[in-house]
């Protein structure tokens, strides 16, 4: 398990991370979201050992992390980069060897990955001659070739077409199933919501939401929806709620005083036929917008 413990970091006078703590569990896909400049890339770079933390530390399986451990991680930086003028087979072998594989083993794995990623028979082509989607595939193979113990992927879905997104999702799920902790950042919130087991949201360098998988806001601020026959104007007089949306036969309201929703429900039953009463699930996008206001 990869854990951040109170990690802080500044660039010059600017504090970019402030006491960041969260964990990335084995077998879990952990989504990492936040507005641009919230500190996601810095956090990931610290996890990879590319940047040092000013305060706090990162641990692996309970012990402070070492460079040797980090060098076994798989990493996909936000700004993609490989050698444009080198053949992809040679390039993948090189990255395998850099991670400590023998030349033979690196070649064998490169061939296997290229085949399973639909790039069989193209190992002699230069990277720059591939389509962007295929370059992205080579990029992810680079992160996988040495059999990483943990995956840290900065925006792995950016720039991918729907087919490639599907492919990448399947691949990440598979890795998680193998017991590899996976941390990935993304701005595609629907995708994160659909794909992730856990979620970490960073706002201005601080963790705002942690492991909130179903994205339920706290009860005090919960929103409810009431649908019933007849007049609903009586709700406006209730000081325990605040109406957020009103249509004929349907009202959505936010709880201001805990327990008000029960009172509203019993009053409604007394006044007419209630056709629906439910708590409104907030989508990650809504949560994101609300948290980042």
């Amino acid at each position, binding site marked *: 398990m990869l854990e951040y413990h109170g990690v802080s970091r500044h660039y010059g006078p600017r504090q970019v991370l402030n006491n960041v703590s969260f964990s990335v569990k084995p077998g879990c896909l952990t989504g990492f979201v936040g507005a641009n400049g919230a500190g996601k890339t810095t956090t990931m770079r610290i996890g990879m050992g590319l940047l040092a933390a000013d305060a706090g530390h990162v641990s692996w399986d309970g012990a402070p992390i070492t460079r040797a451990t980090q060098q076994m991680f798989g*990493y996909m930086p936000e700004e993609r980069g490989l050698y444009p003028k080198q053949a992809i087979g040679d390039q993948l072998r090189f990255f395998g060897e850099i991670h400590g594989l023998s030349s033979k083993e690196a070649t064998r794995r490169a061939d296997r990955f290229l085949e399973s990623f639909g790039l069989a028979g193209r190992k002699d082509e230069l990277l720059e001659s591939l389509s962007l989607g295929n370059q992205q595939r080579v990029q992810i193979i680079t992160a996988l070739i040495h059999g990483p113990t943990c995956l840290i992927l900065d925006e792995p879905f950016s720039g991918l077409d729907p087919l490639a997104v599907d492919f990448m999702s399947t691949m990440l799920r598979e890795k998680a199933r193998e017991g590899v902790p996976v941390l990935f950042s993304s701005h595609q919130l629907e995708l994160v919501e659909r794909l992730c087991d856990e979620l970490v949201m960073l706002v201005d360098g601080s963790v705002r939401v942690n492991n909130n998988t179903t994205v339920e806001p706290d009860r005090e601020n919960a929103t409810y929806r009431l649908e019933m026959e007849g007049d609903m104007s009586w709700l406006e007089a209730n000081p325990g709620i605040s109406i957020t949306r009103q249509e004929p036969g349907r009202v959505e309201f936010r709880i201001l005083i805990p327990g008000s929703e029960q009172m509203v429900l019993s009053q409604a039953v007394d006044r007419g036929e209630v056709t629906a009463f439910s708590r409104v699930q907030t989508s990650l996008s809504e949560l994101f917008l609300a948290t980042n206001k």
Partner: protein
Amino acid sequence: MGAQRPAWIVVLRREMGMKVREKTFRIGIASTLILVVLGIAALSFFSNRTESHTIAVVDDAGSAVVNQTAELFQTIKPDSPDKASAVHVGTEEEALAKVADESVDAALIPAPDSTGAKGWKIVADASINPALEQAVGAVVQQQATSSNAARLNINLAELSRGAALQRELLSQEQDDDGSLFVLKFVFSFMFVSALMTYGLAIAQSVVEEKESRVVEILAAATSVKYLLVGKIGANFILGFLQVTILTAIALTGLKFVDVIPDLGRVVAASGWFIFFFVLGFFAVSCIWSALGSMATRSEDLASSAIPMQILLFGAYFLSFTAPEGILKIASFVPILSSIAMPTRILDGGVEWWEPWAAASGVVLVGILAIRLSTNIYLRTLMRTNKRTSLKEALRYDHA
């Protein structure tokens, strides 16, 4: 599973592999080689090259003249004498035919002179080599004088008293300015171009990894020190191979054209050139890598590389244009000395301790440069967003 390689060797192999596949690299090697060969050709042109003359003769008297001509050549120019050899033919017509089909350079035919006395005629096709004509003329004259003296009962020794021109050279050195100039030109070019090519290649390789952002993956996978060691190692091996192979070709060429009387000194100077190349390379390679790491795009490199290029080209031009005093100073200035000192050795007259003193200077400056530049490299490598100034690079704390 095969053997696992240390990361710096993996980097080194990739760098070398990519480099030798580059078209510009091959063109560079080829053009340097052509220049070296042209230089040697020019050298042979500048010098009085040895000629081998074949002369058709019809009798033993003719071959005696030719043999004495060969001896005369040996006396005039003992280091690299022209050669003369006789080719026996049966008749005068045969001799003339051989001259006509250019299978001999000339024919020496008995011919009475205007007084009717027995004499000689030299026959050539379009022109007679002046050295040959002069030498044969001298031999014929000497033979005639000697036989006339005997016939007139005159003591030949008495007759030729005071007629010999004596010769003495004040300097032990061979005064051969033309060939020395070309030699210095060729050798300093060979070494400066290697220092420049492979140094710039290091800087380019560093900036390319920054530009393509691959450096982030590499730095995550291994220590960036290994990247630096691998890059410098690869370019050093290529540069070293280039200069040693070219030097070997140049020396073989010089031996072949046989124009340098003191080839031993050139061989020794070549050894010093290679020695100073090794030292100079390590001193400048780290500076090149730091220049690469401070740039963000290849375009930035063009301007940050200018001071280094001026320095190296300066060393190059000094080597064959500077007056002795300035060259002597340059031969002790680190980096400049990598070219200037071996050039002075080529000139001759360098004290034994001087190359070692210059070498110590390069090592000292090299160590400082390596420390400073490695620091800059490590500090600036991950800054892929903007070019780093030297001031920033030195101030910037870890990543």
